[in-house]
């Protein structure tokens, strides 16, 4: 195991994060605050409780997930796309490192950044809304797992992307809709039955539901299903990355 390489990649990526820390933190904090003001305070005041929780508090887990998923994906996709773009990927390919080490470095850094942002948003939420966390350890575990799994997804997108447009495309076209339709701002029980059934094909539903359970002890789907979904998703991404490195898809001629 080339631990020095993992550490080197990780530190290198975190340094880039440091250089752009203002952009990285200001925008999610600002947009989350806006969500709280608009949905929590303005609209929320007209909405009764959802599943026994005030609407302002109800959207907190969804908002955190929304930011964490998009941040993890874009961080990781950019992290591995950039060396492809500058050509410095030659160094990764010629170094004595295994695919697991490369992934650990890039995905580890992207997940750390996303986790950091998730926690900042949670802290921001405390300023606006009074919330209690029913299962803090489960909350943290789910948050970390989500950071990792969406960073893995981002890594795949970064390897697949042939230009900057494609790099933006997937998060915009796929992840944002899935997250918005995944019950960030509503309980899926509010949907008509047909849509409830369709929604169950959206993996994000399971993540948001599980995450909300860790806050309020209530969920749209069982926590077991949520854990299963995230495990399947993470394993799927890992298997795909393993295949990428074995075949050299899009990276090694």
């Amino acid at each position, binding site marked *: 195991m080339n631990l020095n*390489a993992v550490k080197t990649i990780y530190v290198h990526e975190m340094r880039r994060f440091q250089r752009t820390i203002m952009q990285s933190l200001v925008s999610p904090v600002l947009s989350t605050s806006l969500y709280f003001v608009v949905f929590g305070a303005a609209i929320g005041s007209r909405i009764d409780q959802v599943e026994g929780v005030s609407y302002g508090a109800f959207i907190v887990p969804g908002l955190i997930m929304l930011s964490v998923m998009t941040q993890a994906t874009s961080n990781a996709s950019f992290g591995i796309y950039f060396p492809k773009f500058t050509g410095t990927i*030659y160094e990764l390919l010629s170094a004595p490192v295994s695919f697991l080490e490369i992934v650990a470095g890039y995905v580890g850094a992207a997940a750390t950044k996303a986790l950091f942002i998730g926690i900042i948003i949670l802290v921001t939420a405390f300023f606006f809304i009074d919330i209690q966390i029913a299962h803090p350890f489960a909350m943290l575990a789910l948050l970390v797992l989500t950071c990792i799994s969406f960073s893995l997804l981002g890594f795949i997108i970064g390897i697949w992307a042939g230009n900057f447009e494609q790099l933006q495309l997937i998060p915009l076209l796929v992840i944002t809709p899935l997250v918005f339709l995944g019950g960030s701002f509503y309980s899926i029980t509010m949907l008509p039955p047909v849509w409830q059934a369709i929604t169950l094909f959206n993996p994000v539903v399971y993540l948001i539901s599980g995450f909300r359970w860790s806050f309020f002890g209530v969920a749209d789907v069982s926590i077991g299903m949520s854990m299963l979904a995230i495990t399947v998703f993470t394993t799927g991404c890992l298997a795909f990355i393993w295949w990428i490195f074995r075949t050299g898809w899009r990276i*090694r001629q």
Partner: protein
Amino acid sequence: MTAIVSVKNLRKSYAGGFEALKSVNLEIAEGEILALLGPNGAGKTTLISTICGITSPTSGTVTVGGHDTQKDYRAARAMIGLVPQEISLEPFETVRASVQFSRGLFGKPRDDGKVDEILAQLSLDDKKDRKIMTLSGGMKRRVLIAKALAHEPRVLFLDEPSAGVDVELRKDMWAVVAGLKASGVTIILTTHYIEEAEAIADRVGIIAKGEILLIQDKAELMAQMGKKQLRIDLAAPAAEIPAALAKYALHRAPDGQSLTYTYDTKGPRTGITTLLNDLQNAGLQMKDLQTQQSSLEDIFVGLVKEE
């Protein structure tokens, strides 16, 4: 000769089916400098990339220090440093951070002293904290070399190190290469400049259309180049070489109009005067005399054109 790099029956076909390497065999001795010469598209970069792990071979094997580059890639790659043909660097990174990154990636513990030493060796000490995008092209190439040396490799590949580099930097680089050789590093470089091969290589390989056409000791090549040819045009065609001239190893043109004599300019005597005397005694009339010298360039062009 103990080979540190050994390439056996290496083939590489790119995705489109284009065969960039056609069964290449190559042994590189520990501590030598090998220059690979070849026209654009010959397969030089492909050969280096395949040895270093950037492209996968279609078939064949490569070992570095006895380690198979596929099966035992960690041990093999840890020995190799690569300076790519294209300048590929992260623009916002500082010079020092970039070199430290390379060292860590190759599994070596952080060592600022070593990194500074390498930067000094490449006259980059005053550029350490500069962002790479603020450097000139020649300096960027030095940074690439520093990155390749960061993990103290045993074998260094330089893919066209003198492309886009001025005379002074080229001389500097040759000095660096000589210093590395002195410390026991094996160096393989590709170049389009024959003078470069002449100046620093121990052996010269010529590659064209995915095949190594010739690989020879530079001294031997130079000895060949030290040979001159004297062409004697005859007034009347000679049906055969007279027996009296047999000792000169003359070559008769098919039409008998001329004879060619090959001699060594570095030898104690060329033998030309006695040849001309004997020629007259044998009754052959000369019309004209011409001398010509073959250079590495001629050998190169001749081999590459032949295909």
